[in-house]
């Protein structure tokens, strides 16, 4: 076994959910080992929790949500991924996802994001059937919605650096600050 690339891309909860759902329906006619069945059922159980929107999301709701979020250039890919996975319904939920929310976004921006998220949640409740067929620009299912680019790798390395900082707790205040500044 050889791991060529640890992180080709990030996957949203919805992508994992739909992949496992497809597999599960196949399993009824197919013998699989216990390990496979266990992890797939448990993962599906976790993602079926009412707290997650993955059960009634689809590619188009997500890509239109991402398109609308792209106007806020300060949001990182990771933050957008979290907005898609656990859509914030109130300021405090957005506050958890976006670091230093008040400094990076104005009050109007915050409200705009919340209303975009809210409308995308309503949308999928309204008409899901309209989306499921006839989609000329359906995203390639093999292509993750969140491509891993260099910037993202840089962020990941930074996070690794942050973790090191976390592990040796007596790193000075100054160093921690420097990492924050790169983040912005």
């Amino acid at each position, binding site marked *: 076994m*050889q*791991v060529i690339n640890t992180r080709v891309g990030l*996957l949203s909860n919805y992508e994992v959910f739909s992949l496992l759902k497809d597999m599960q329906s196949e399993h009824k006619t197919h013998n699989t080992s216990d390990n496979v069945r266990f*992890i797939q059922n448990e993962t599906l159980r976790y993602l079926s929790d009412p*707290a997650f929107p993955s059960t009634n999301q689809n590619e188009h709701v997500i890509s239109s949500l991402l398109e609308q979020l792209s106007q806020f250039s300060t949001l990182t890919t*990771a933050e957008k991924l979290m907005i898609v996975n656990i859509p914030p319904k*109130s300021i*405090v939920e957005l506050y958890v996802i976006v670091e230093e929310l008040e400094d990076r976004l104005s009050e109007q921006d915050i409200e705009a994001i919340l209303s975009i998220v809210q409308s995308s949640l309503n949308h999928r409740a309204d008409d899901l059937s309209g989306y499921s067929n006839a989609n000329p620009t359906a995203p390639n299912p093999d292509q993750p919605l969140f491509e891993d680019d260099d910037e993202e790798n840089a962020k990941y390395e930074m996070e*690794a650096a942050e973790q090191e900082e976390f592990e040796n707790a007596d790193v000075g205040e100054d160093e921690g600050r420097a990492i924050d500044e790169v983040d912005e």
Partner: protein
Amino acid sequence: MFILSLVKDTIPVIPSNLNLEPSIAIRDSINSKYSNKILQDVGLSISLHSIIQSSQGYLQHSNGNVYYKVTFNLLVFRPFIGEILLAKVKSTNQHGIIASIDFFDDIWIPKNQLPEISEFDSAENTFFWLAGWEDGDPFTSSPEQRAYIDIGEQIRIRVEAEHFENVYPTPKKKQLDDQEEAVPTAYRLTASIDGQGLGIVSWWEQDDEDEQDDSAMDQ
């Protein structure tokens, strides 16, 4: 919380599966080898995502398997540092909380990552949080003032650190001898519930409007 990892491996297809489409037989073989396994420095592998490339099958003289050299994407659970996850409280002890997300139970929330002024109530065997407590000893508070973190409740956590460890199998006899010793797990996460919006989900739902007022006032 999920990533794709590109992996290359030689995959055997056993003779009884040779009547299947090669892609299906390869998929099953990959899944039974990798599903629910922790790959060192990669994460918890969930299943095959897509096959990128495969060689033609090779036979060896020693058995009836057909071997394929396959390059494929694995679906892996590996939250990034700082990611927000929803989890459930699995158990608590006086040093901290163990959280679970159904398929992964090794999330540790140490006591120092709980919200400020949290204490362990040994009678209830859970932690409680006193929001805005300023009257000295936390144990003088009445039960109504305490926000308990009960087992089974849904909590929002932030991943603070990840730990990979090489775990070697121990001989059976030794295992019996040191049953007291905790067995290390190959992949663990350390998380925090200290901060606005973190912790039990319903804490923040009830105070929704107050919170909005508060943050409006802060600005």
